[in-house]
């Protein structure tokens, strides 16, 4: 009956839930993560805020932030309905460096990630590149132009980030839906290529 094991049974009157997957949009503070989520999401980006002291932290994680017990970490996300049975969520990772530990939770179960880079200050996203490389989470690098302009070719960016050949670098305009969509498609093509190997 309905109450016996809710995880195993979906009862007759209850609408069937779609499968869900997620992709992370990472990068330094202010590189355009929420802009990218918003341009390609079917809903206006939603925000959840989590008080840091209850975010499942070990004591060590709180070192240096004892003075700010009221700190919250905000995360913006959007949604793309692929079909009746499948929904893709896009999560913008918190941009502040000290909130990296949240990414571990966020990263679990993700298909992959987009590391967004501000063409004017690529160094602000170095840490995000490190994070996904170290955890062997598949990612593409998307270079967000300033007002849509791209002064450097993708190869220069690859060199400055010391990226291996296998990681795609895509020039994009995070404000534009088609451009953000193409970045996500580049990630899926990378994942599919790895899957058929």
């Amino acid at each position, binding site marked *: 009956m309905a109450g016996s094991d809710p995880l195993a049974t979906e009862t007759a009157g209850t609408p069937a839930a779609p499968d869900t*997957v997620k992709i992370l949009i990472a990068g330094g503070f202010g590189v355009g993560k929420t802009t990218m989520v918003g341009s390609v999401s079917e809903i206006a980006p939603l925000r959840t805020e989590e008080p840091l002291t209850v*975010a499942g932290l070990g004591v060590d994680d709180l070192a240096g932030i004892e003075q700010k017990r009221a700190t919250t970490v905000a995360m913006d996300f959007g949604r793309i309905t692929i079909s009746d049975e499948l929904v893709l969520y896009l999560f913008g990772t918190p941009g502040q460096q000290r909130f990296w530990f949240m990414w571990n939770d966020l990263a679990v179960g993700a298909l992959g990630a987009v590391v967004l880079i501000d063409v004017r200050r690529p160094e602000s996203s170095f840490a995000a590149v490190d994070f996904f490389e170290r955890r062997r989470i*598949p990612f593409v690098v998307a270079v967000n132009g300033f007002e849509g302009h791209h002064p450097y070719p993708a190869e220069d960016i690859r060199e400055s980030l010391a990226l291996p050949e296998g990681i795609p670098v895509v020039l994009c305009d995070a404000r534009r839906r088609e451009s953000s969509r193409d970045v996500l*498609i580049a990630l899926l093509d990378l994942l599919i290529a790895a899957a058929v190997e």
Partner: protein
Amino acid sequence: MTDSDASGRLVRPFALTGGRTRPSRADFTLITTVTAVDPPPELAPRPQAEQSRILRRCARPVAVAELAALLDLPVSVVVIMLCDLLEAGLITAHPPRPVSPRTPDLDLLQKVREGLGRL
């Protein structure tokens, strides 16, 4: 962030969970979808006001992260309340598609790729 729930909230978020800051079950992720059981089981306890707000929001399947954003509550608070609702048989929970880089699901990846291509 605001919605049609004009009732407002005058209690601190963790007062809603009886002071608990950790869920009793760990099976709610950000993209676990929850759905109110309709009709509710006859023997289920009567939901409290905040629980009723959640149940109204998940008449259709909704992801935990969305629910938290719509209710303007931290995910950790919503998860604790969802645990209670699950144990009372008032909701069902549908876990996300398992994803493992070592054993990629080609069919799933192609479906996502095709869906993005249609945007």
